[in-house]
């Protein structure tokens, strides 16, 4: 079935379009036959899992590595409890996205455009594209920083990374992209090894205590602490995640019967991500214990080399690159999917580049331009980082409001997939909390003198 790309005014369901093409060309579905019910469950989960793990682990991107290790370096283990608090928040927000994606088979940008009109559709898209692009610049800046630490020229490494990231998606196979990306996610297990290595000689009971019991660092609540807490929240729950996972679920054509497996995928992803984030804090904590100032994760790796060894130093730099690569592929895809959905273009990783040229061009353009910007001498990277934080802080609560409203859309979803009352209570609480943090963050950026430094 062929459909014409129609631009802003009408909006064909892009992922459904791919599914229609699949339906007309695909023979009777083939699968694997097993005789054990237990094996059936394991294999079904293995086939469904992916979007949840990827969206969560890609959230531990270069900015997150920097934020979590900084939190550990400045406040030791005192902020571990915050991560535990963020675990259910991450899950509840992303679970809504999964439900919406499975029920409609469409991306988040398309849903906002269709259900809230052109103004909100375009506003959400433009906001997402701007914040995502600026975030991509920070990812490539982290790659440049890490390769410099390994003695490699960023002028070579950054374009090579960008080319590899484009090569990862242009295979025309969703499954191939997902397999490689899941492997990159699993590599983050190395943070657990690093944390054990860093915490040698530390107090395990203190780690457990500070994870379970909220404690305040010495000196009490100071502006720097408040903003680090906001940065941690903003890093852990980012606007692109909503768009990414819904499009990913739609692109993978997850079925109604996959909902519970997909929820499990999201829960495992959230738990793994929070554990990895905690491990990053524990690695930073070694700087805190040694009273070494923190500048960035690459400097942290070099500062810890005499204590943890050269292997650990190299591992920190490689994990920085891995975090940036994961973040880049997920963020670029969320932009390209959203852009394609709103423009009415074919936008699927399961299409070959000649079948979805504008989708792949958008992905390549976002990735390539961000990489090029990092290589410009004296590019205003600090300004970009401030801009990313402020813009993400401003748009995140509003993005979640639309998610919440969409999940109460009885007309579209029927009674089966809309939020239950308890979902709504939890989600409005999250929205109010995020709005309060967003206003404080925006106020700091707009009027820094309102919250003078310590």
């Amino acid at each position, binding site marked *: 079935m062929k459909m014409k790309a129609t631009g802003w005014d009408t909006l064909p*369901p892009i992922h*459904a379009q791919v*599914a*229609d093409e*699949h*339906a007309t060309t*695909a023979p009777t*579905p*083939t*699968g*694997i*036959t*097993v*005789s054990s*019910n237990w094996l*059936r469950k394991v*294999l*079904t989960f293995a*086939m*469904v899992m992916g979007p949840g793990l990827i969206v969560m682990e890609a959230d531990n991107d270069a900015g997150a590595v920097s934020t979590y290790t900084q939190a550990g370096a400045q406040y030791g283990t005192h902020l571990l409890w915050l991560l535990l608090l963020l675990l259910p928040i991450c899950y509840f927000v992303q679970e809504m996205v999964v439900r919406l994606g499975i*029920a*409609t*088979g*469409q991306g988040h940008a398309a849903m906002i455009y*269709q*259900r*809230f009109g052109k*103004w*909100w559709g375009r*506003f959400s898209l433009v*906001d997402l594209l701007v914040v995502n692009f600026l975030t991509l610049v920070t990812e490539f800046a982290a790659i440049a920083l890490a390769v410099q630490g390994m003695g490699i020229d960023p002028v070579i490494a950054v374009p090579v990374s960008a080319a590899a990231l484009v090569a990862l998606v242009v295979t025309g196979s*969703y*499954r191939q992209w997902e397999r490689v990306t899941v492997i990159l996610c699993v590599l983050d297990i190395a943070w657990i090894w690093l944390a054990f290595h860093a915490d040698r000689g530390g107090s395990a009971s203190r780690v457990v205590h500070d994870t379970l019991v909220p404690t305040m660092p010495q000196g009490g609540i100071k502006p720097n602490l408040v903003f680090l807490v906001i940065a941690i929240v903003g890093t852990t729950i980012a606007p692109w995640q909503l768009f990414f996972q819904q499009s990913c679920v739609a692109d*993978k*054509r*997850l*079925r*109604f019967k*996959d909902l519970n497996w997909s929820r499990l995928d999201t829960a495992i992803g959230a738990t793994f991500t929070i554990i990895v984030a905690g491990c990053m804090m524990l690695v930073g904590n070694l700087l805190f214990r040694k009273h070494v100032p923190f500048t960035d994760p690459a400097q942290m790796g070099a500062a810890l080399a005499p204590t943890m060894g050269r292997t650990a130093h190299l591992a920190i730099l490689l994990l920085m690159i891995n975090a940036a690569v994961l973040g880049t592929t997920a963020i670029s895809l969320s932009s390209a999917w959203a852009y394609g959905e709103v423009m009415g273009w074919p936008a699927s990783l*399961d299409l070959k580049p000649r079948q979805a040229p504008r989708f792949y061009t958008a992905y390549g353009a976002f990735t390539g331009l961000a990489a090029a910007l990092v290589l410009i001498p004296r590019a*205003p990277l600090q*300004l970009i980082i*401030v*801009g990313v934080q*402020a*813009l993400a802080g*401003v*748009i995140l609560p*509003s993005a979640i*409001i639309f998610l919440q*409203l*969409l999940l109460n859309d009885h*007309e*579209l*979803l*029927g009674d089966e*997939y809309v939020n239950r009352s308890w979902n709504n209570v939890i989600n409005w609480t999250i929205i109010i909390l995020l709005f309060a943090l967003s206003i404080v963050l*925006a106020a700091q*950026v*707009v009027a820094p003198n309102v919250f003078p430094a310590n």
Partner: protein
Amino acid sequence: MGKIDGKPSYLIIHPLDDLPEVKRTVMPGMGPMKLTMTARISLLALRAYLIVMLVLVTYRVFTMATSR
């Protein structure tokens, strides 16, 4: 679930290999979501807040850029 040689058997199909299913899509004529007056006013307030905040953030970033 089926049976092979009297034993239960299960066919597992990857979502990408399965036949597409009918989703809950926006039907022609459904149009934008129906909102209560309170929700409508709240969204208008949100729109104003976002426009003001984005202008302020942009102004602030440009100020920082020019003062470097």
